[in-house]
């Protein structure tokens, strides 16, 4: 599904990633771990088109993604959340999700000026779809609030709902459990499992080892910009503890 072949990235003289290869063969939950500064988020930025690789090839469903603009990558079916939450704080939850639904045009620009029945129907449908997605992540009753008024954990869930609105095949989650209490963590783990059961592939960056070990089918370990290990959770656990970072 997703294949990174010998991908490198430098910023000037600083080599952030060197010769990183990894594959997401098909449906499943996959993990990307490593200490801070190992280049995990850079991998996400390369996949989503925010950065262009200095060398190497990124392929998604057999097509190269290199140099493709972020909005096109999203339309191909890759969605993501952010380590430092980036919801639209001054918009309501419905509006946040509706923005992501909007990339599929259902009506022309003219009907915005002269609202036709079809336009109203499309708008109504959009709000309904947004509500459904919010319900999926357990935010239905807060749909009309401003996103900035949500708690940290809730904003992370809103980001997931917003990502789902783009109808992805592959979802990239950047530290989905950061800053959450154990109850919230369990809740988000259940949600991730459910999303995967519904046919979505998921790649997770996370520092919480119990979280990542409990969810993932395969884990890639990154250190100083290179892949140092790859395997099932058990295999990874058996290898040097040093690669795993801090246990919580």
């Amino acid at each position, binding site marked *: 599904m997703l294949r990174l072949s010998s991908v490198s990235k430098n910023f000037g003289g600083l080599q952030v990633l060197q010769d990183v290869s990894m594959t997401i063969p098909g449906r499943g939950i996959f993990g990307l771990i490593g200490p801070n500064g190992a280049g995990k988020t850079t991998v996400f930025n390369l996949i*989503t088109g*925010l950065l262009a690789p200095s060398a190497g090839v990124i392929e998604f469903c057999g097509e190269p993604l290199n140099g493709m*603009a*972020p*909005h096109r990558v*999203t*339309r191909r079916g890759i*969605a*993501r959340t*952010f380590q430092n939450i*980036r*919801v*639209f*704080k*001054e*918009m309501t939850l419905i*509006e946040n999700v*509706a*923005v*992501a639904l*909007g*990339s599929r045009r259902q009506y022309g*620009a003219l009907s*915005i*000026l002269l*609202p036709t029945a079809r336009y109203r129907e499309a*708008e109504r449908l*959009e709000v309904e779809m947004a509500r459904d997605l919010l319900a999926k992540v357990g935010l239905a009753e807060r749909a*009309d609030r401003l996103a900035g008024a949500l708690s940290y954990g809730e904003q992370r869930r809103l980001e997931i709902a*917003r990502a789902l*609105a*783009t109808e992805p095949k592959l979802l990239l989650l950047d530290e989905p459990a950061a800053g959450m209490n154990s109850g919230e963590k369990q809740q988000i783990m259940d949600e991730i499992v459910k999303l995967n059961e519904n046919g979505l592939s998921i790649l997770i960056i996370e520092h919480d080892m119990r979280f990542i070990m409990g969810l993932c089918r395969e884990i890639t370990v990154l250190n100083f910009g290179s892949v140092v290990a790859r395997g099932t959770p058990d295999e990874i656990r058996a290898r040097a503890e040093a690669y795993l970072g801090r246990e919580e």
Partner: protein
Amino acid sequence: MESLENLWATYSTLALSLGTNVLLALSIYLTLACGLLTVANAAFMGLGAYTAGLLTVQAGMPFPLALFCGALLPALVALLIGPPTLRLSGVYLAMATLAFGEVVRILILNAEGLTGGALGLNAIPQLTRWFDVALAVGLALYVLLRLARSRIGRAMTAICQDETATELMGIDVRAWAVEILAMGVLGGTGSPWGAVIGGVLITLLPELLRGLGHYRPLINGVVLIVIILYSPRGIWDLIRPIRRSTQISAAN
């Protein structure tokens, strides 16, 4: 009735410039609402004004047609310069558009044969009546308010709040920006109403403060600084929370 006519005779110019400035403010609202700091809006307005004026004086074109061309030409120019300049963002975009404004100004000043240079265009018949201006303001407001409530408005707000996140929602931010710049030419941030308040105030303020004589520019400046300091997102932002809370309590 007569006193009313006198009042109109005295203040008609003010009323017309009130309307035109509201239009200019609305065009700035549109670009700012997208998070684009462009300062070429006045230059586009000037291009339009010269186009309409020249077509009337030199070509004797009928008024509505001249007006239409006056809107069309700057829109075309915007479509032309939009794609390259909108690769820039933030202060760099402001600088590029500032340069564009200067180019327009210098061109107009030096094309004396066509534009009259520094002396300006003279003897333009005053064909614009108050209801033309009112109609234009009404139309621009209607379009902008409809836009703000639509998907396009949502995308604009999202771009303004976080351009990168918006791109990753599958929205082609640059294509939007070009469209918006072209639209902005035809036309406080956060709401079109804010722009209306701004346009009215900036036109009225010097008139209202006329009694202050030499101190007028001073007070004018103080008013602006107070607004920037205490309500950086404009006067409308002071009114809006009240509206929002009443809407919410009404909804409950």
